[in-house]
């Protein structure tokens, strides 16, 4: 009954694409994204990841493994500090997969999960860099000037991209059983 799932290939391609798009968007719109003292970054990677977990259906993708791979590339290419994103991302995937069985995947609940996931990701990233002294921003400044604007920007992205990505996943995941309406 299962058709071949194109999602198996589309998911990782989209994952890496969103990683590079993040870097590109941050560069092109850097004038407005990094207007002092606020700084926000686009996190399409996390958006793709969270929606992937909720909409994979019965394809059962190895999302945590892909997350580790994307995290490794992120560390390698953007920061040069290995073992940060490479571990935060898979841990986040495991937590989301663990909690997603407790509620119905509606627009609002996924939005809330995305909000919490992004907060978790940014905070964990910040805490590790604070520990190795690669950042000296105080935690209150981090929440006010970095985390809050980043959340605002990415929730906008979420609202805009929710339906297109959802329909992309639904049409490519290949299962005959479409549970999410």
């Amino acid at each position: 009954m299962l058709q071949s799932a194109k999602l198996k290939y589309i998911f990782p391609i989209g994952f890496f694409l969103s990683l590079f798009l993040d870097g590109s968007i941050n560069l092109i719109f850097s004038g407005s994204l990094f207007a002092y003292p606020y700084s926000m970054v686009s996190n399409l990677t996390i958006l793709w990841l969270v929606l992937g977990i909720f909409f994979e259906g019965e394809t059962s993708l190895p999302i945590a493994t892909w997350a580790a791979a994307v995290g490794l590339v992120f560390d390698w290419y953007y920061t040069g500090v290995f073992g940060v994103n490479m571990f935060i991302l898979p841990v986040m995937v495991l937590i989301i997969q663990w909690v997603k069985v407790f509620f119905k995947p509606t627009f609002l609940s996924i939005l809330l999960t995305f909000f919490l996931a992004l907060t978790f990701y940014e905070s964990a990233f910040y805490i590790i860099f604070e520990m190795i002294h690669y950042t000296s921003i105080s935690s209150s400044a981090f929440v006010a000037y970095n985390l809050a604007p980043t959340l605002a920007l990415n929730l906008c992205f979420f609202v805009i991209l929710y339906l297109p990505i959802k329909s992309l996943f639904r049409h490519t995941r290949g299962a005959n059983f479409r549970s999410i309406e």
Partner: protein
Amino acid sequence: MQKFFSNRKLVIAVICVIIAVGLVTLSVTTRKKSTTPIVQKVGNDAVALVDRVVAYPMNAISNTSRSLNSIINTYQENERLKGKVDQLEAVRSRDQALEQENKQLKQQVSLKKTMTDYKLVTATVISRAPSSWQNIVVINKGTLSGIKKNQSVIAGEGLIGRVIEASYSTSKVELISDSSDSANRFAIQVQDETGSSVNGIVTSFDRGTNEIVMGQVTSKAKIKRGSLVTTSGLGGVTPKGLYVGKVVDTKKNSSGLATEVYIKPAADMSSINVVSVAELN
């Protein structure tokens, strides 16, 4: 809950944490070395290749919109720039004469290399790290073009940061505005009213006002607002005479013993597209 933390998973989790801590420690120690490991270089270049392909359409769109925008301002800008060109020619010819003289004088005192002998390598910014408190950009030139770790980078008019990782055809540049402890340590100097210079280092970057802070200045010299700030070449890593910015304010620090000099950077740190890396000869 019990199932989630079974014995086996706990062991795996602990191992993962140990590996993560090990990798982070390793990366921190490699960054302190003077060269980047080959594996990291190759990886950087390979990823950059994919990144360039992905970023190409995005850049095309942004370039088009930028050129459309600039068409509107072209006339006014042209008028304004015409005036400046004449001045610039005069400065340039004088500059050339002085350089010639400087060269001859250096020869006479048999001084071979000084901290003002540097050449600039121009590079384009490919990408910007997607983390909000870090300011790292990736540029499209590397060790093949002679770029080395720790070289200073300027954009437009002024200093913006230094190379923290040099691969074969790409490099990572950490901007002065980065919040890392070591990102902004540059030896700089300010000319005071009497013509002598006040030396110091950049001690922090004020993110609220977008200003460079030169702290712990104990000299009693009066520093005027609007004085030019350049790199001093002390320390032997940064060339002498790279333009940093202009003094906007001086304050006593909290203990009242030293002066803090606030400097408006000449380069716009938030939007950078083309940079030049200063290579000491």
